[in-house]
């Protein structure tokens, strides 16, 4: 099928299948899935700039579906999502500026590749350690899946809880309460910092950086895993819409490809979101571990072969 905006010939079935796979991952883990979508679009000959911009547009649609489903399951903290969107947009702009600086210095590829590998491997290692430790600690009485609505039903357990509690005790004005997430008071600055760092990586490494933001929400802010997944998706709608707009005015978005891809993602995202009901927080986090490693493998492949996937 010919897509006139980007001038690419791509099978719509291929696009729908890629969308479906990313939809399931997104609905279940609260990630945008750009580490799969970007290379998958690139693999069928779409220019890199179109792959990045079009992927962002598709992420908006997929996140709307998944966030709506998560909202129905009581997994979205709207107040937290709006505050985080501010930090993410600011961070994404700074990340993009950082990339421009490195481009001028002439070593952007090496720096971004090394940092991304270090970040991906660190996240995976930490989550593997934490989720296994939590599951071992609660072997006798395993944590329950996140069925039902309200903070009590979504209550989560983590081996990192003492550090999270210490962060929540920081009294830096203004404080905000997040009753949906079961948090009595937390500094707005901590939320903004977490989302800013997520946005920074998003602008710096590309994609939505859900693989950084979702774990940060669980470990730093102390949001239950099910709520972190749902709220991250809601927040991605805002930040990815902003990204889509800026890429579209630069001529990097083929919305027709995004619309076709999204037909698969719409059903995948619903399936992924429903599946979260049947798994406890630590199990979702344990299943999350391979995702950043896939990202690291793609970067290593690119470094070794010189081909951008």
């Amino acid at each position, binding site marked *: 099928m010919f897509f006139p905006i980007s001038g690419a010939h791509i099978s719509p079935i291929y696009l729908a299948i890629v969308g479906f796979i990313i939809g399931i991952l997104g609905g279940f883990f609260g990630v945008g899935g750009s580490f799969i979508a970007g290379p998958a679009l690139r693999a069928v000959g779409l220019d890199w700039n179109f792959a990045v911009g079009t992927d962002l547009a598709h992420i908006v649609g997929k996140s709307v579906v998944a966030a709506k489903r998560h909202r129905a399951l009581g997994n979205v903290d709207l107040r937290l999502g709006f505050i985080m969107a501010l930090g993410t947009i600011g961070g994404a702009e700074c990340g993009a500026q950082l990339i421009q600086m490195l481009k001028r210095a002439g070593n952007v590829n090496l720096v971004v590749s090394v940092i991304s590998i270090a970040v991906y491997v660190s996240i995976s290692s930490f989550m593997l350690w934490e989720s296994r430790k939590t599951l071992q600690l609660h072997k006798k009485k395993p944590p329950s899946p996140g069925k039902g609505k309200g903070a009590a039903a979504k209550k989560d357990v983590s081996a990192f809880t003492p550090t999270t509690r210490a962060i929540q005790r920081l009294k830096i004005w203004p404080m905000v309460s997040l009753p949906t997430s079961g948090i009595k008071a937390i500094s707005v600055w901590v939320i903004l910092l977490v989302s800013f760092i997520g946005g920074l990586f998003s602008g710096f490494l590309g994609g939505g950086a859900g693989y950084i933001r979702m774990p940060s929400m669980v470990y730093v802010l102390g949001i239950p895993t099910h709520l972190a997944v749902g709220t991250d998706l809601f927040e991605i709608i805002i930040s990815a819409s902003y990204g889509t707009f800026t890429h579209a005015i630069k001529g990097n978005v083929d919305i027709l490809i995004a619309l076709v891809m999204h*037909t698969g993602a719409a059903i995948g995202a619903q399936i992924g979101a429903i599946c979260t009901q049947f798994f406890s927080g630590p199990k979702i986090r344990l299943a999350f571990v391979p995702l950043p490693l896939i990202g690291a493998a793609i970067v290593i492949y690119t470094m070794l072969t010189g081909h951008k996937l």
Partner: protein
Amino acid sequence: MTSEAAKTLRAFAIELVLYAVLVVAYFFCVLHFLGDALQRLAAHHRYTYAGIAILLIIGQAVVLEGVTTFLLRLLRGRSE
């Protein structure tokens, strides 16, 4: 496999077939009705194109979410 699981899988398979038919029809509608207009906008009116692109993807998301939810309810005979 339990009868409940078999029933769910059968419903899911039917749902996928129905959805695939709808989606194939949709591909042709989108490209036929929107292709040229969007290409012109992308080439000459970037800001309008950017705004319409976001509206289209969000609009499609809301409609498809409604369609898939309707299909799930119709085929499984119960609300989720």
